[in-house]
């Protein structure tokens, strides 16, 4: 049998159920490997001792009917975990210990999952490279000094480095799919309203959505089944009939219509991305899907829209960090001075930039010109997808316009950093499900991903197409454990 840490979630569950591996052995393996992997900096907070204790308790009284029986899992540090420090990658929450549990993580623990620790991410999930984290860069396990993507960069790196069997991230503009693409892993952003936002540190509430990240498509279907639930505690949670995503997973996608949007052929797109996309189209055909050219005419307006909507919502969500009830407090000569110094010292540059943009677009006299305008364009972007879905069942695009870049390469140019999310942002604006699967490599052997976008609440079709294409693509990450040498 191969090493415990390199097993997929499905294989690990099977081994635990067949009593070939105990939960405690699994926990030990992941922890041992983490101890040798400090260099890639995935953990903000380790929960190792507690994880060992809980795994032992599971083994003493196992329940194999659970969907994640005694499975150790590390999660993005944006999910509040009861009595375990939750920082959102920010100095302002450096010492914050929640008194409650996010619904998504609670769902995981209810099904037998055990918390390994909290994973690094861009500060308040604002970033595409994990470089905005107060807790430092994360290394991409693919190669040294390469970013793991962001904002769920600790999650994607931990997964690719075999430090957790599966993980969860959050995706506001691409923060699950882009890091998955950069690390040769699978990442799914569900339909807005599928997974509860309760207990997730809020960034842009109309866009934020939690989702699974995994080594293969089947594992994402298993984890989605656990985390997707209707939740009264989230006013935008939607009560729809959820599929049994893993048992309904099928490679029979014959006759499904897959759309290819011509507007995603953006100016200056590297040839290797174009090639990858063409290859993806061939794979989809091989799987029996019918390929149809479609148009999403407002695609090029998605990023400008996003960079109004997301900062506007962020500026109001982040107003709560004032140094009064929790988090960092700097001293000031009066109350206002205390607020201003706390927020200046507590927030990093990117967060300040976005709070400033958001405050500006919502400020008196500018609201109509920016925020209202953006909401109108958001409507047009959504209508593009609505019309496309009259003709097709799903849409196939590249996940990102490039492979992973070097640490520091884009950190001084916010706009070039934002362009990374050009293919993922429209999906958030329209609230749709989207998955990124590894599909090839570039000239440096860095992974490249393809994105499958589905109809609202049709995660099953998205997963089925990804599952079929995954078999044809047969991608394997080549991780050399360079950080251990």
């Amino acid at each position, binding site marked *: 049998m191969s090493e415990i840490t390199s097993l997929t979630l499905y294989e690990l569950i099977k081994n635990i159920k067949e009593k070939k591996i105990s939960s405690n052995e699994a926990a030990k393996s992941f922890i041992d490997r983490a101890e040798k992997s400090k260099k890639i900096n995935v953990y903000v907070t380790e929960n190792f001792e507690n994880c060992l204790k809980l795994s032992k308790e599971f083994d003493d009284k196992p329940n194999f009917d659970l969907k994640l029986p005694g499975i150790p899992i590390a999660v993005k540090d944006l999910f509040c975990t009861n009595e375990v420090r939750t920082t959102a990658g920010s100095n302002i929450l450096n010492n914050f210990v929640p008194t409650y549990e996010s619904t998504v993580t609670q769902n995981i623990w209810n099904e037998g999952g055990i918390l390994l620790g909290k994973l690094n991410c861009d500060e308040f999930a604002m970033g595409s490279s994990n470089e905005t984290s107060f807790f430092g860069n994360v290394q991409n396990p693919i190669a040294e000094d390469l970013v793991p993507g962001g904002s769920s960069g600790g999650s994607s790196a931990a997964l690719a480095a075999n430090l957790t069997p599966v993980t969860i991230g959050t995706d506001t503009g691409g923060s699950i799919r882009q890091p998955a693409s950069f690390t040769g892993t699978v990442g799914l952003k569900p339909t807005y309203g599928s997974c509860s936002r309760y207990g997730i540190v809020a960034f842009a509430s109309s866009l934020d959505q939690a989702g699974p990240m995994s080594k293969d498509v089947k594992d994402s279907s298993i984890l989605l089944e656990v985390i997707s639930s209707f939740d009264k505690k989230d006013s935008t949670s939607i009560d729809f009939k959820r599929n049994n995503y893993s048992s309904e997973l099928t490679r029979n996608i014959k006759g499904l219509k897959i759309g290819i949007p011509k507007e995603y052929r953006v100016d200056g797109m590297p040839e290797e991305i174009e090639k990858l996309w063409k290859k993806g189209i061939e794979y989809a055909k091989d799987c029996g899907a019918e390929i149809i050219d479609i148009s999403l005419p407002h695609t090029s307006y998605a990023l400008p829209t996003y960079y109004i909507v997301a900062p506007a919502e962020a500026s109001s969500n982040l107003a709560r960090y004032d140094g009064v009830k*929790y*988090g*960092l407090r700097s001293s000031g000569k009066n109350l206002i001075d205390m607020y201003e110094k706390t927020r200046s010292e507590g927030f990093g540059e990117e967060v300040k930039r976005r709070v400033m*943009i958001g405050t500006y677009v919502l400020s008196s006299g500018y609201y109509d010109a920016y925020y209202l305008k953006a*909401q*109108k364009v958001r409507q047009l972007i959504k209508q593009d997808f609505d019309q496309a879905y009259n003709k097709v069942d799903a849409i196939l695009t590249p996940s990102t316009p490039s492979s992973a870049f070097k640490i520091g390469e884009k950190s001084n140019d*916010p706009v070039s950093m*934002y362009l990374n999310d050009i293919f993922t942002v429209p999906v958030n604006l329209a609230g749709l499900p989207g998955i990124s699967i590894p599909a090839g490599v570039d000239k440096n052997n860095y992974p490249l991903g393809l994105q499958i976008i589905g109809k609202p609440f049709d995660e099953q079709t998205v997963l089925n197409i990804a599952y079929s294409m995954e078999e044809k693509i047969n991608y394997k990450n080549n991780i050399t454990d360079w950080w251990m040498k």
Partner: protein
Amino acid sequence: MVVCDNIFYHMTIDLKTVKHISKLARISLDEKKAEKLATDMNSIFEFIEKLNELNTDNVEPLTSIAETTLRFRDDKITSENIREKILKNSPEKNDDFFVVPKVVE
């Protein structure tokens, strides 16, 4: 910002505006940081200006993607008494209260 014929042209965000916004956002900025932010914000707004190409006169703004009506719930206390745990997170406390700098003289 100048509005004419339903098209608006973005004007440069100057240092004064940046300082005004930083007051609204309750973030103190030194001169150097304010200058850097002005540069960044201008390049971001230049990029955002693209939206002006579109006529959106008769478009309904999309405020929420989830077409749900807000649900009612009973007005009942659901959490246990966790006052101590909550106070533990506070930067400064006094018995059962959060402490802030003096507000009223």
